[in-house]
């Protein structure tokens, strides 16, 4: 089933932002459920509610019950109570994991058009709202259904890391009343305090991203090492099998020449158990992280802006943005 785009309402965006801001400080992920409707080939997300964090002292907390209660209550106030997906926050883009795959698979299995919304708070704090919607490709769905993660299975389906997730474009759609509200907000609010987007010093984030990338590469090389040892073991075993067969034949020939009955053909496969093929799913997941993370930050574009200008006039401007805000505010307040 092909999904053209995902329409999100203003309050869903704001609720997700608020949930992370209040409950997700640090590197913990926050999750929640998305509610909405499917209209022709669009998925409309009209509301959402957060999931509480898992705490150790809350053993008897029943997630399913919480969800049921919430949806029943929301139905009373005419909010769409159809489950259409879930959202998760991410730490520097490292959200591709086994858990995510499993959850998304179970959602997509039950509801054809469900998506997972990934909200990146760090990139958003840098100036541009970073919200992406992902679904599993049909090929990956089939593989998950059969739970066949061996190399042969994946080879059959021809899955590379680019074919794991597909991104669905997000469109923000608002009603007229919300537009009036936005107008009101803009009039009554002060000028934005920070223009993080123009900040030249992005090295902090760059460092952390690189760190995570290196960790992923370490995981990947370990996995590749495991696969290589598996291949070597397999070929060694084949050799041993051949040798055993040859010896058997020789012995049989000798015995025949002496007139004794030949030794029975033993079940060779029982003697040489083939080594376990490592699950290739994890490798794919790690590669998937890399693929999804492929776009570099806009820091390079930011730097080229002052580089192409003459002299360092614009650099001065960028340094002064905070004082400019104070100034404008005081001028406006003073002149009214």
């Amino acid at each position, binding site marked *: 089933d092909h999904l053209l785009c995902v329409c999100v309402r203003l309050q869903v965006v704001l609720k997700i932002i608020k949930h992370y801001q209040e409950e997700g400080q640090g590197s913990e992920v926050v999750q929640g459920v998305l509610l909405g409707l499917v209209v022709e080939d669009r998925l409309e997300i009209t509301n959402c509610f957060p999931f509480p964090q898992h705490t150790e002292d809350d053993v008897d907390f029943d997630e399913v019950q919480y969800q049921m209660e919430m949806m029943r209550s929301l139905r009373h106030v005419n909010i769409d109570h159809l489950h259409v997906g879930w959202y998760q926050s991410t730490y520097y883009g490292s959200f591709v994991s086994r858990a995510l795959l499993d959850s998304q698979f179970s959602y997509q299995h039950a509801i054809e058009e469900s998506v997972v919304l990934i909200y990146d708070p760090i990139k958003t704090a840098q100036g541009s709202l970073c919200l992406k919607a992902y679904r599993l490709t049909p090929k990956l769905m089939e593989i998950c259904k059969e739970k066949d993660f061996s190399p042969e299975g994946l080879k059959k389906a021809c899955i590379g890391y680019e074919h794991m997730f597909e991104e669905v474009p997000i469109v923000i759609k608002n009603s007229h009343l919300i537009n009036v509200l936005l107008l009101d907000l803009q009039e009554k609010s002060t000028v934005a305090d920070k223009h993080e987007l123009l900040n030249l010093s992005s090295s902090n984030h760059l460092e952390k991203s690189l760190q995570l990338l290196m960790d992923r590469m370490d995981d990947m090389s370990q996995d590749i090492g495991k696969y290589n040892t598996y291949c070597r073991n397999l070929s060694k075993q084949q050799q041993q099998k051949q040798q055993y067969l040859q010896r058997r034949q020789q012995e049989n020939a000798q015995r025949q020449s002496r007139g004794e009955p030949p030794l029975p053909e033993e079940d060779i496969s029982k003697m040489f158990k083939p080594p376990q093929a490592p699950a290739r799913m994890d490798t794919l997941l790690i590669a998937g992280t890399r693929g999804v993370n492929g776009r570099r930050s806009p820091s390079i574009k930011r730097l080229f*802006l002052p580089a192409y200008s003459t002299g360092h006039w614009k650099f001065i401007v960028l340094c002064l943005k905070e*004082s400019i805000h104070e100034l404008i505010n005081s001028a406006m307040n003073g002149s009214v």
Partner: protein
Amino acid sequence: MCCCPATARIPWRPALSFSSSPFVIFLHFLYKIMAVHGPLVKIHPVVLASIVDSYERRNEGASRVIGTLLGTADKHSVEVTNCFSVPHNESEDEVAVDMEFAKNMYELHKKVSPSEVIIGWYATGYDITEHSVLIHEYYSREAPNPIHMTVDTALQSNKMNIRAYVSSQMGVPGKTVGVMFTPLTIKYIYYDTERIGVDLLQRTRASPSRTNGLTTDLAQVASAAGRVQEMLSTMLSYIEDVLSGKVMADNSVGRYLMDLVNKVPKITAEDFESMLNSNINDLLMVTYLANLTQAQIALNEKLVVL
């Protein structure tokens, strides 16, 4: 580009729970000029968006929607961070609010954010009616000194007026006692990320189909730079006016300008260029490494699948 001050001038609206006797009307005039006292109300935009949404989904025949406000309160201010709507029935004579529902929802919300408490309630519509007083009484049992917020979704004055009130006793003790709602100042408050989200969504106002895609990085850097440029030109025109004598020079503005000019770090052009270039080199190296790893992974895939 002009920004209105953050405080809203709110006229005084009394609500009397008994039919007005002449004595009470006299008091009405006595309290005409009221100093705005009480806590400052800070509202997050997520609350307003939810209120508008629940108004749009109201039942047939209901003219307004009510709900609970959640948030945190301290001595001087009240911060409203969340809300949920509560089903209710209203007719000429009576009003029925589903209290069980309100309690349940509050419990559920508490599981996610345990620091939020009930700090008041909201209603859509322009006026404060008698029913509001009753509902307010219920909420005063739940929270100390609840605030009441009205959001005018019917746009009676061509704008969505958002007001907040706190109730106080009024009248002569022992005789006719009434309840008066005193207005409070409202301020919109944002987290940084919320601010960015709302700024982005302001653009949906301009597009005719009320939709907006999430823009690319370069476009956003360009628009941010454009905004700073606008601000600079506003400043420059003000300075020119002062210099040519058209506008009176304001000392505090002058001091800010002085701060501004002094904040520019004293770096020579060559130093700055070398810093910029080394930074760009770092970024280029990282981009190169990223492309290298991507090529490596693709190669690995091909080898394995073979």
